C-alpha cells in the first residue's frame, strides 16, 4: 500500500490490560493545570527542540493519557526546557512542571524495574 502513496496506520485502540495510568494520575495530582489541556498543539508548533529533530510534545501528552508510557523516557529527553510551550499555551498549563514530573516519574519506575 505504501507504494501507492497510502500509509498503513496501526490500530489505535486502547488496550486496557496494557493501560498504565500511574504516571498520569501522579502528574495530574501534582500539576492540576494539566487537566485542562485541549491538545491544540500550540506547544508543538513553537517547540525549539522540534525544529532540530522529530519531537512532538502534544503526542507525548496523548501517549501519557492513553497509558502508553514505554518509550516516553527516550522521547521526553529531547526537550530543552526552554519554556516557549508554556508561554504560548492558551490554557496556561505549567508544561515545564509536567515535563519535570514526567522525567522524575519515569526514572522512579525504571529504578523500581516495573
Amino acid at each position, binding site marked *: 500500500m505504501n507504494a501507492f502513496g497510502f500509509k498503513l496506520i496501526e490500530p489505535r485502540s486502547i488496550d486496557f490490560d496494557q493501560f498504565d495510568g500511574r504516571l498520569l494520575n501522579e502528574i495530574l495530582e501534582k500539576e492540576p*493545570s494539566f487537566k485542562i489541556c485541549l491538545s491544540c498543539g500550540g506547544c508543538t508548533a*513553537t517547540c*525549539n*527542540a522540534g*525544529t*532540530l*529533530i522529530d519531537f512532538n510534545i502534544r503526542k507525548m501528552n496523548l501517549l501519557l493519557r492513553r497509558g502508553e508510557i514505554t518509550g516516553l523516557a527516550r522521547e521526553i*529527553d*529531547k*526537550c*530543552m*526546557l*526552554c*519554556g*516557549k510551550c508554556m*508561554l*504560548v499555551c492558551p490554557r*496556561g*498549563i*505549567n508544561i*515545564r*512542571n509536567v515535563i*519535570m514530573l514526567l*522525567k*522524575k516519574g*519515569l*526514572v522512579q519506575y525504571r529504578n523500581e524495574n516495573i
Partner: protein
Amino acid sequence: METPLFTYPFSIGLMFIVSFLLVVTCIWLAALSKSDRKLILKKIPGPASLKAIGETFMEALLHRKIFRKNPVLGYMHTSLAFGWFLLIVVGHLEAAVHYHTFSFPLWKSIFFRYAEPAPATGFAGHFFATSMDFLLLLILSGVGLAYYKRFNSRAFGMKKTTQLKVGDRIALTALWLIFPLRLIAEGVSAGLHRNGSFLTQPTGNLLAAILPLPLLEKPVWWAYSCALGVFFVAMPVSRYMHIPVEVLLIFLRRYGVRSQKHVNGYTRVQVFSCSRCGICLDSCQMNHANIRNTQSVYVLKQIRGRRLSDEQLFNCLLCGRCQKDCPVGIDLNDIRITQRIESTAEYNSTYDYLKNGPSPQADVVYFAGCMTHLTPSIKKSMQKLLNYAQVNYWFMDEHKAPCCGRPLIQAGQLEAAQKLIANNRDKIMQSGARTLVVSCPICYKVFSEDYKLPNVRVMHHAEYLLELVNQGLLPVHNSPKRVVYHDPCELGRGSGIYDQPRQLLGQYVELITMKHEKEDAFCCGGSLSNIKISMQERDRIRDHVLEEFQQYRPDQVVTACPLCKKTFTKGTEVEVRDLAEIVWESVSQQIIAAQPPVKQLEPEEVPS
C-alpha cells in the same frame, strides 16, 4: 574556694558546644575540595585573615548590614552580640586584674560577683564594676527589644517574622532568660555583700527589702548557670548555630572559597550560618501570590534538616532579591541551584541528536534566544539596527538552534545544559566572531558565565547598542516620552548591568526614577526558574509590579528582556517595549525624516 556545684551546668554546656563545633568544623573542612583546602592554607598567614577579623567585627558583632536595613533592628542585634562579647572580654579582664594573673578557673570570671563577694576597691575595681553593669544594661535593652519584636515586628521594619521550631524555642527561651537571671543573681549577691554597682546594687537593695536573700543566693546562681548550659546544649539544634558558624563563613569567604555546583562543606557552612532572621521573607515576591513556605529561610532550614521537598525547592523565581538583603551574605541562589542539580541528577538528557554544521564567518554573532522568538518585534528591531549600522553579523538562531542552556541550569539539569553549551560554543568559535550579542538576559547570563568563550566579548544588546551609539553608528534623538525602565533579574542582580540600559534610554526618552529599581527591582513574575508556580500566581506577582509602574504614569514601560516584556504585555494597557524597539523606532523615524518629501500628486494630475 572550691568550685561551686552550680557552675557545672555552665561548664558542661560550654565543653559540649566547643567540642561539637570542633568536630563539625573538621567535618565541613574535610568536605571541601582539595584546591579549596590548599587555598585556605596558603591564605591563612596573609592579609585575608586580618580582613576576615575586621569583617567579623563589623558584621558578626556590630551588624552593620542590619543597621542599614533598620536602625532599631540593628541596635537590637548589636546590643546583644557586641554587648555579650564585651561582657565576656571585660569580665575576664576584671578577674585578671583582680587576681593579678590570667590563669584562673574560667567560672571565676563568669560568676565573678559570686566568687568575689567583697565590694570593689580602688579605681580599677570601680571602673570594672561600673563597666560590667553598663554592659549588662546594654544587653538587657536589646533583650527588651527582642521581647517587643515578638509582638510587634513591624516596629523593626519587618512585616513578617520566621516560624520557629522546637530547638529554636528552647534556645530562644534560654537566651531571653540568661541576662535577666544574671541581673537577679548579681543583684541578690549585691544585696547580701554590697558588691554591686549602679545597676546591680539598687536591684539588690530592692530585692533585699522584699525577699529572704540568704536563702535565694544559691538558687538564682543555679538558674543563671542552667540558662547558659541549656543555651549551649540547644545551640546545635537551633538557629543560634549561626553565631559561631557565621565567623567560619566569613573566614572561608575571605580566603576565596566559593559556592560550587555541587553540595560540599561550604554549602553546609552557609546553611548553618543562616540566623533565620527573616529579612529575606520581606524581600520575597512569592508573598504577593500568597506562597509562604518556599522562601530562602525555610529552604535553608529544610536543607539543614535534610527534609527539603521538590515543591519548596522549585517554587522560587531565583530573582535574587533575598540574596542582596541577606545580612550574612549567603549565596542563596547558588545554594538553591545546587540543590536542584542534586535533586534532578538522575535524569539528565544527552541531546545526542545535536549536530554541528559549518558556521558562516562573521564579526558579530547575534543570538536572539528562545524568548525573543516569541516577541518577534525585538529581533526584527535588532536585525534592522544591525543592518543600519552595517555590522557584519551572523544571526545564529534565526531558523533553528538549541536553547542556550540557562533554563536547564535553573531547573538543575546541569549535565544536560553542558551538552547544549558545548554545541553552541563550537558554532560560535567556528564563526571567528569576536563579539556575541544576545537579546535575552537569561541567555546573557549563561553565555557570560558558563560558556568560557576565549577572546569573545559577550554583550547584551543594551550594551552593544550603546556602543554603536557612542561610535556614532546609530543616530540619537530625544523624544519627550516618559518611560520607566524595568531591570530584568538576570541582567540586573544576576549580571550587575544597571547603567548601560539607562544611558542608552537617556539618549532617546525621558527616564523616570522609581522606588524599586536597580538592585531593588522587582521580578516580573515570568521567571523560568520557577517550575511549580501556576499562571494565576504569576499574574498576581506581575500585577503587583505593574501597580508600582502605574504610580509614575509612564507613557511606556521599557525593559531589556523578552520574557519580562511578554509577561507585562498581558497585564497592562500601557505600551511595553524592549530597548531595541525604542532605539529602532527612533532611528526609523529619523530615516523617514531625512528622506526628501515625496511630492503628493493632485487628483487632476493623476495620469489616466
